[in-house]
């Protein structure tokens, strides 16, 4: 069977599975729609959280970034796992004890203020929407490749499927579907990695293969360093980014992980407080399975790519791949516009090399007139990887299905968080308390549709690779929601005024900093300064600025609270109550 037919078959089968589950577990009530009842086992909840969590950014984009940035991409690995430690110790058990539906609901009650609740809704929508944009980019890339469309049309197909899918079921449908999606995506990620690791190092466990030796006896990572440096790229295992940037970006991603509403909501659904703690652990186990394989995927994909293009000795005329005999996957990706080649020196061969000073003169002496792989979108690496390695078609098809599962499950979870913030917190909680359950569900579906359209629009002009867009979303969550929730639990002194001022300060400063370098509302041409290290404040990239925003949030909240009266007595009791596990009722009591 050819690749196209195989892909339709595998993707089609997985879809049948998801839709089947979604219909079987349809949400009956608003309670079901927002949280999946309390009967979800911690391990299953961990798997669903894993699927919810691991998005197109983790599945498609992250290993691609690792492949091209090497050590510097460790920020994503540490950042997106370390946040679970914060979640388990600082938020999850207490929010479970509190036992309501949404994050803004907690913030509104703890800070005894509708204003605080509205501000939390705004923060939630801004962060989640940015996150959905990142998913849309991933969905667009996947569909464009496998339907052999241009990127834009791939994106539209993806939007349609997400809409149909997320609107159909609520959280209950999503939880069971996500368990299935976790299985699909982890299988799809691991299988090619095992094959490739075996091929390159003889070791079937990718985590060990990455530290293993190749057929010629050299360590794989050493080999990769040599190959790259010989072609004028940075050494793979060296740190090239500034320490402050690496530090702040990791911090931003960790705090953002703990502050993202669609993940926090997960821990409202477990039966008990102690399950909330252990569920976080299981979630991280499920996530770590992919995250410890990703570095191997990245390094091996890069090595295979280099070997595909640089077939022989560097500098020898026949050492480079002839464009006419480029492999099939190369042509297919060119069709999507995400991979581009330009024959700068007119020799009909592909020269792919980096811009290090030391290599410049050498390249010129070979008659090379510049890097000819003019575009290699990082987001294509994971999808192209099995083809580059020459794996069988069914493995390639499986990876497509996995990528779609990852993007869909996360988009659905995020859309649900946005929908519940709009319908439950804004409409029912504040503007129209008398609204019927039916109208509330209707409102949440309309909100979802609106969010998909907006995200699709931005997906047409994404402000970066999927993982980078997602990193922005984390910065926004880190600077706005996390500090407000954490202080709400750990401090009895932070009051309404402090929390509102803190959230607004954190969100606005971070958002303005991002727009300053990426364009207002990401519209190209409206940026105020070039997006490079020389113009950044203290050399901090927009992706990393969320950690600074979080700090501003904490400081502003503290100072404003000190200048205004402390929270009332009943709030002090509320805080004391959420700090002890005993007496946790079922989630969702009004």
């Amino acid at each position, binding site marked *: 069977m050819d690749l196209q037919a195989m892909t339709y078959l595998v993707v089609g089968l997985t879809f049948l599975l998801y839709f089947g589950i979604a219909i079987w577990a349809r949400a009956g009530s608003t309670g079901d729609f927002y949280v999946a009842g309390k009967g979800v086992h911690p391990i299953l909840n961990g798997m669903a959280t894993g699927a919810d969590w691991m998005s197109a950014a983790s599945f498609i984009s992250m290993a691609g970034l*690792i492949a091209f940035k090497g*050590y510097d991409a*460790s920020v994503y*690995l*540490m950042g997106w*796992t*370390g946040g*679970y*430690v914060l979640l*388990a*110790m*600082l938020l999850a*058990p207490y929010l479970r004890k509190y036992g309501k539906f949404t994050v803004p609901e907690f913030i509104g009650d703890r800070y005894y203020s509708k204003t605080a609740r509205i501000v939390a809704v705004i923060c939630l929508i801004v962060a989640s929407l940015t996150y959905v944009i990142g998913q849309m980019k991933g969905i667009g890339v996947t569909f464009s490749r496998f339907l052999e469309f241009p990127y834009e049309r791939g994106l539209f197909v993806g939007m349609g499927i997400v809409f149909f899918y997320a609107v159909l079921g609520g959280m209950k449908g999503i939880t069971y579907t996500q368990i299935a999606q976790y299985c699909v995506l982890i299988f799809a990620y691991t299988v090619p990695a095992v094959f490739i690791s075996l091929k390159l190092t003889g070791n079937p466990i990718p*985590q060990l293969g*990455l*530290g*293993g*030796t190749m057929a010629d006896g050299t*360590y*794989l*990572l*050493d080999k990769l360093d040599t190959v790259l440096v010989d072609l004028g790229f940075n050494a793979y*295992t*060296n*740190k090239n980014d500034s*320490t402050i940037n*690496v*530090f702040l970006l*990791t*911090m931003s991603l960790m705090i953002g992980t703990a502050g993202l509403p669609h993940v926090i909501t997960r821990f409202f659904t477990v039966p*008990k*407080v*102690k399950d909330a*703690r*252990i569920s*976080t*652990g299981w979630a*991280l*186990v499920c996530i*770590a399975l992919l*995250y*410890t394989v990703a*570095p191997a995927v990245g390094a091996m994909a890069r090595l295979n790519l280099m070997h595909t293009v640089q077939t022989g000795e560097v500098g020898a005329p026949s050492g480079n791949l002839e464009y006419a005999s480029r492999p099939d996957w190369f042509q297919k990706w060119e069709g999507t516009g995400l991979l581009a080649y330009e024959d700068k020196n007119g020799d009909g061969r592909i020269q792919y090399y980096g811009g290090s000073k030391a290599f410049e003169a050498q390249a010129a002496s070979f008659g090379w007139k510049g890097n000819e792989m003019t575009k290699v979108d990082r987001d294509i690496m994971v999808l192209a990887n099995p083809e580059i390695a020459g794996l069988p078609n069914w493995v390639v098809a499986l990876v497509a299905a996995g990528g779609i599962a990852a993007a869909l499950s996360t988009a659905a979870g995020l859309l649900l968080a946005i929908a519940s913030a709009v319908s439950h917190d804004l409409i029912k909680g504040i503007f129209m308390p008398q609204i019927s359950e039916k109208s509330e569900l209707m409102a949440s579906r309309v909100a979802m549709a609106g969010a998909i359209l907006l995200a699709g629009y931005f997906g047409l002009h994404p402000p970066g690779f999927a993982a980078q867009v997602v990193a922005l979303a984390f910065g926004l969550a880190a600077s706005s929601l996390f500090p407000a929730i954490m202080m709400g639990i750990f401090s009895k002194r932070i009051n309404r005024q402090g929390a509102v001022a803190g959230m607004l300060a954190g969100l606005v400063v971070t958002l303005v900093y991002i727009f300053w370098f990426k364009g207002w509302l990401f519209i190209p041409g409206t940026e105020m300064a070039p997006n490079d290290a020389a113009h950044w404040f203290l050399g901090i990239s927009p992706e990393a600025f969320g950690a600074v925003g979080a700090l501003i949030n904490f400081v502003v909240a503290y100072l404003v609270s000190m200048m205004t009266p402390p929270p009332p007595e009943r709030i002090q009791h509320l805080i*004391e109550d959420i*700090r*002890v*596990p*005993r*007496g*946790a009722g079922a989630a969702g009591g009004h």
Partner: protein
Amino acid sequence: MSQDRSPQAYWKANLGLVWICLAVWFLVSYVFGVFLVEPLNAIRLGGYKLGFWFAQQGSIYVFVVLIFFYASRMNRLDREFDVHED
């Protein structure tokens, strides 16, 4: 004199545990994986440079262990202070 079993003492014990766990969390990721990555890279762990290993593998394993450690210690604390559920 019997030990203090008040909610305040429970909270203090919890905070102590959180501080220890977060110190380890910070050490493996930020100290080993970022600040000291270059000196640690001089040491090798098979084909891995040690700093690189902490940044791309080791820190993640430690995070998993930390959460399970915290969860089990908290379950014990809940019982000691008689604040456990059911």
